[in-house]
């Protein structure tokens, strides 16, 4: 305690000299702490990004394989195609049906990988519901009729199928749990009545569905009502299935777009078309599509983007012999586009931090050399009148600690003020592309013609919906956090120890007899 008092008194008595050192240290420490704040913010943001981006993967039909199939079909004439269709055996028809799908065996095997944290399977297809009308398709047919086009010619980009599309065709999306369907997890769709189908509904193949609110309203359907669906490729007994409505959802994006439209055009104020997508348990959709054991994609969240290479290697092992037909896609590029500028800012800040800390060390060393050489006589006196080396060193230690503490407290305050500006300065001026889902799902994509959005991942909304991209500037939020305070204490201790090196060396070697004889 007495040592502290003596050191603190000494700090006060040499105030001007010490304040000069404080100011010099303050400048360097402010720069150091700001760099540290930027580094910590960038690290933290990258970690947060890692939790949501870069750790997603899905197994689906490869783009190359799809392109090959598409090219093969394109070379055939219409007559050849219809002759081929007529001559198909039941087995060939079934093979055709699953040609664009992924075997569940493969998606299940990959799900057992050590890095995989959550897993879902998705099958999306068109299903005919004899009792209700798809007003969207009806309108589309109307437009085509007006334009003198044939309905069968549609396809391509929007993902409209060609095979047997009618005004009773609806888009069915099946997975293992309604609540974890990407449309609901991304907030594009929101359940407003009833419940989601559960994993138990999936395992028990319970014939339940979730319907869009406008569609339900147009067809006077409510929770508990049933609708009849046609099972694809089956005739006679078992050709239809009764589906019970258990949930009603609304399309959030559609409403917000409708609102933004209303502000610019009053004629479209109430435009919010009925959604034509039904959500049902995967096993039910597989039955309706007559493709048991096949899915459109396997959807996975793994632990970290850092394991992307490992997870790709694991996939290659699981998919041996089939890698040309199926592909594992990840959102690594999304991660890179967001995280790279942050990582660059982080790396620059680390260099700046090292330089500034080096400068701090140099300043305190030089300052101590000057201070100690000016106070050699005082040290000699202290030792001559009975002060131990430890007492003198402790006094200087407290004094240096006071200098460094004042400097770092001021630096922390300054960092709170300029940290964000420093972050903005270090962050490369880049933008990142953010993909958002469009107003409503387009019916009939799979398996007939889903060429349009192969590169879009399921988790961004849906593989079968159109997307819009926006350019967003990457922002670095430099916030004052506890870790920075802890690092500040560490820097304080480090700089103080460096500062102590000179006095300790000097005090131990000092011979008071030499000093005291000097005039």
């Amino acid at each position, binding site marked *: 305690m*007495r040592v502290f008092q003596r050191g603190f008194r000494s700090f006060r008595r040499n105030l001007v000299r010490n304040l000069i050192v404080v100011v010099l240290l303050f400048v360097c420490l402010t720069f150091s702490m700001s760099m540290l704040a930027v580094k910590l913010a960038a690290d933290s943001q990258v970690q947060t990004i890692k939790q949501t981006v870069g750790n997603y993967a899905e197994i689906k039909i490869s783009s190359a394989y799809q392109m090959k199939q598409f090219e093969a079909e394109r070379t055939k004439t219409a007559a050849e195609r219809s002759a081929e269709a007529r001559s198909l055996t039941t087995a060939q028809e079934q093979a055709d049906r699953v040609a664009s799908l992924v075997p569940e065996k493969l998606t299940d095997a990959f799900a057992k990988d050590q890095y995989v944290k959550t897993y879902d399977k998705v099958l999306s297809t068109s299903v005919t519901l004899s009792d209700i009308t798809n007003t969207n398709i009806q309108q589309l047919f109307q437009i085509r009729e007006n334009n003198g086009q044939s309905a069968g010619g549609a396809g391509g980009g929007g993902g409209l199928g060609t095979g047997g599309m009618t005004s009773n065709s609806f888009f069915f999306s099946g997975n293992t749990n309604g609540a974890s369907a990407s449309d609901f997890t991304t907030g594009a769709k929101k359940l407003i009545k009833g419940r989601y189908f559960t994993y138990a509904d999936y395992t028990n193949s319970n014939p339940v569905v979730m319907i869009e609110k406008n569609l339900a309203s147009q067809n006077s359907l409510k929770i508990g009502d049933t609708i009849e669906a046609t099972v694809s490729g089956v005739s006679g007994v078992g050709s239809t299935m009764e589906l019970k409505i258990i949930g009603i959802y609304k399309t959030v994006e559609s409403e917000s777009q409708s609102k933004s439209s209303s502000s610019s055009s009053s004629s479209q104020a109430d435009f919010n078309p009925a959604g034509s997508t039904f959500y049902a348990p995967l096993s039910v959709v597989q039955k309706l599509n007559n493709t048991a054991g096949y899915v459109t994609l396997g959807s996975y969240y793994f632990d970290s983007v850092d394991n992307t290479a490992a997870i790709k290697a694991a996939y290659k092992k699981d998919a041996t012999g089939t890698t040309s037909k199926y592909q594992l896609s990840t959102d690594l590029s999304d991660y890179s586009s967001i995280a790279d500028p942050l990582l660059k800012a982080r790396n620059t800040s680390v260099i700046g931090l090292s330089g500034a800390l080096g400068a701090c060390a140099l300043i305190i060393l030089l300052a101590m050399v000057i201070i100690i050489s000016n106070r050699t006589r005082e040290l000699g006196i202290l030792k001559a*009148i009975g002060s131990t080396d430890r007492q003198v060193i402790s006094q200087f230690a407290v004094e240096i600690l006071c200098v460094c503490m004042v400097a770092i407290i001021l630096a922390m305050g300054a960092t709170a003020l300029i940290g964000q500006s420093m972050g903005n300065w270090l962050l490369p001026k880049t933008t990142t592309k953010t993909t958002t889902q469009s107003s409503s799902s387009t019916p009939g994509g799979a398996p007939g013609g889903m060429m349009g959005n192969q590169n879009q991942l399921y988790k961004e909304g849906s593989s079968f919906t159109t997307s819009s991209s926006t350019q967003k500037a990457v922002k670095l939020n430099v916030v004052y956090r506890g870790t920075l305070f802890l690092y500040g204490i560490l820097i304080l201790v480090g700089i103080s120890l460096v500062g102590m090196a000179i006095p300790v060396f000097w005090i131990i070697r000092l011979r008071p007899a030499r000093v005291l004889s000097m005039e």
Partner: protein
Amino acid sequence: MSEQVIINATDVNKTFQVKAGEVNAINSVSFTANRGEVTTIVGPSGSGKTTLLYVVGSLEKPESGSIEVAGRDILDSGTNLVRYRRENIGFVFQFFNLVPTLTALENVMLPMDLAGIRPDEQRRRATELLDRMGVKDRLLKAKPTKMSGGENQRVAIARALANDPDIILADEPTGNLDTATGSTVIDILSSLARENDKCVLMVTHDESILAVSDRAFHMVDGQLSEIIL
């Protein structure tokens, strides 16, 4: 050995390495100094007086010989020299050697602080000592730069007495003072020896001080010879 003898130096040698070679600063020096007496060592500059004083004060370590203080050899490896200095020795220097950032009072309190005495006791004793040395109250809070040479030396003597040591080692205590002030300082030191039973060992080249000394030695080229007073 008399009961009065407090310093008994025997065959003490001290050499310094310089560029030109080795210099015998103290050459087989033996002497005694008594409690209650002023012992003076006179000699020209460079004769080794100050070195001998520092050897007795344990600021320099001799190559050989023994120095017994109150019957105990301070050159024994078991002696805690810092403690010895703190408890037994009070230094008075030619250039005062007060800590410039401390006030007169704080300078006197400093040795007591290092010895772990309570702050209120330090203050009481320091005020008393400064009063005894004739330092005016208004100077208690003055820093050394604001005081005259004589005032500085009085404060330095008060500091030397702070821990009530048996021995006062004075190195040219009047060397930086005018004659009148120097005479006052010598009076203070001699009264300390006689009235407070201290051993005052003084080195000087001013032979007029011999008049107040009880014993005196002459030192030339590191060798000591007693002067019959």
